């Protein structure tokens, strides 16, 4: 391969270019990013950066010089199209980049609702520019409303409380973070949010955003209104695949890949938009929006691209999914894959406390673990999940380690 193009200059794209060089690729390496910034870390955008505890220079992802990577950087330039037959990438402004190998890592973009008008004070949170714009409003002492009590919405609300701001969280589902953690843990999170002074409205329907030029109030389905200076819409993300719609790759809520993360010969995907079968979970087709996944897939996809091109055998990507969230002083960590129908056992503490581990079993196998401020134990269970341990062995481990 002479030229490899990596589209997407965030965590997955950066880890991919670093790995390509580390693995000895000496050809032309083009890194394309829609944002004008060098790759930066997104988790602090809902936490330390939004809180005003950090400045943006602390979010830089790569501390070593970029010169070492010998990249052709195309920042502030979105990819607009892909031609697989001619192996050409189209970029905003009309330039083309011919490639032999391609890494697709354009991530995801916040979901919005068509019923929400583009009033001043209405935000989504994905980029560093979004974060700094919201922070400026928080500095002025805003009344904040967050739509969506998922990971991002809950962290934003936590940061607002830390800053002493009034915050109302609206969630259509009966518990916060329920898709990620299930109803029992979700109920515990709801209780913590209320204890911390969040005005948490669960199971509510949102009717309208009202205001003249600026957002002024939110109207709910029952006719009640909530005064609001800053509205943050945090109702999830959609994979950023608009530029791939006509290229012939299979898209289905993401880029559909095989177990080696190949979407087509010479084309791999990594990060939020990658959908692939995970052999560790009986080939369940997954798409993960987590930091660790973007980092691991960026590395794996780069190696997979080089090895397949060299005619080498490539093993499947089969990790234990891992995600964490810091809110209200609690470190929430989830490992594995679990859902509402799995068996649930609480260990290392009590469910009504702020320190415990929940283990999830399916047909006798340990498939997931969730911890509140029990990082040490969580990592041990993450390893047991990768070893296909039984729930019984995990519970025995819990009893033995106290």
């Amino acid at each position, binding site marked *: 391969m002479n030229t490899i193009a990596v589209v997407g200059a965030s965590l997955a794209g950066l*880890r991919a270019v670093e790995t390509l060089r580390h693995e000895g690729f000496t050809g032309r390496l083009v890194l394309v990013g829609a944002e004008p910034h060098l790759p930066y870390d997104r988790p602090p955008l809902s936490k330390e950066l939004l809180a005003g505890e950090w400045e943006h220079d602390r979010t830089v992802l790569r501390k070593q010089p970029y010169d070492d990577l010998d990249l052709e950087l195309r920042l502030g330039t979105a990819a607009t199209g892909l031609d697989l037959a001619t192996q050409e990438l189209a970029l905003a402004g009309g330039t083309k980049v011919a490639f032999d190998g391609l890494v697709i890592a354009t991530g995801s973009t916040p979901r919005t609702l068509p019923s929400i008008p583009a009033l001043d004070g209405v935000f989504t949170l994905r980029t560093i520019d979004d974060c700094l714009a919201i922070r400026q409003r928080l500095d002025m002492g805003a009344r904040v409303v967050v739509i969506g009590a998922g990971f991002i919405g809950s962290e934003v609300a936590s940061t607002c409380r830390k800053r002493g701001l009034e915050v109302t969280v609206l969630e259509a589902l009966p518990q916060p973070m329920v898709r990620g953690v299930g109803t029992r843990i979700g109920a515990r999170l709801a209780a913590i949010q209320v204890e911390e002074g969040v005005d948490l409205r669960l199971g509510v329907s949102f009717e309208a955003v009202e205001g003249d030029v600026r957002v002024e109030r939110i109207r709910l389905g029952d006719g009640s209104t909530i005064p609001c200076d800053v509205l943050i819409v945090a109702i999830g993300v959609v994979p950023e695949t608009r530029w791939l719609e006509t290229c012939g790759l299979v898209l289905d809520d993401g880029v559909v890949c095989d177990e080696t993360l190949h979407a087509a010969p010479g084309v791999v995907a990594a990060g939020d938009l990658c959908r692939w079968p995970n052999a560790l979970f009986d080939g369940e087709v997954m798409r993960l929006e987590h930091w*660790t996944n973007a980092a691991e897939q960026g590395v794996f996809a780069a190696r997979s691209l080089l090895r397949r091109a060299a005619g080498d055998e490539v093993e499947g990507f089969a990790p234990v999914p891992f995600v964490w969230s810091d809110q209200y002083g609690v470190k929430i960590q989830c490992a594995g894959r679990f859902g509402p129908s799995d068996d649930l056992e609480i260990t290392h503490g009590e469910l009504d406390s702020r320190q415990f581990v929940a283990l999830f079993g399916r047909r006798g196998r340990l498939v997931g673990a969730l911890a509140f401020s029990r*990082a040490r134990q969580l990592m041990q269970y993450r390893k047991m999940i990768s070893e296909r341990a039984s729930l019984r062995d995990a519970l025995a481990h819990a009893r033995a380690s106290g």
Partner: protein
Amino acid sequence: MKIVVDFEKCTSNAVCMGIAPDIFEVRDDNFLYVLQEEPPEDKRALVEEAVRMCPTQAISLEG
């Protein structure tokens, strides 16, 4: 090779411990302890993996 941890950034996710438990340890007090600040050269690949996978980018390597 010397391991440097930015403890202002470290939030004790224990990912490093999952990768290299004989070098990094998060204890029950929820603090990270570096068991070997200057690990032997044959641990380099493992330590580099821990640096790469740290969710808060708190670990770096000197030398």
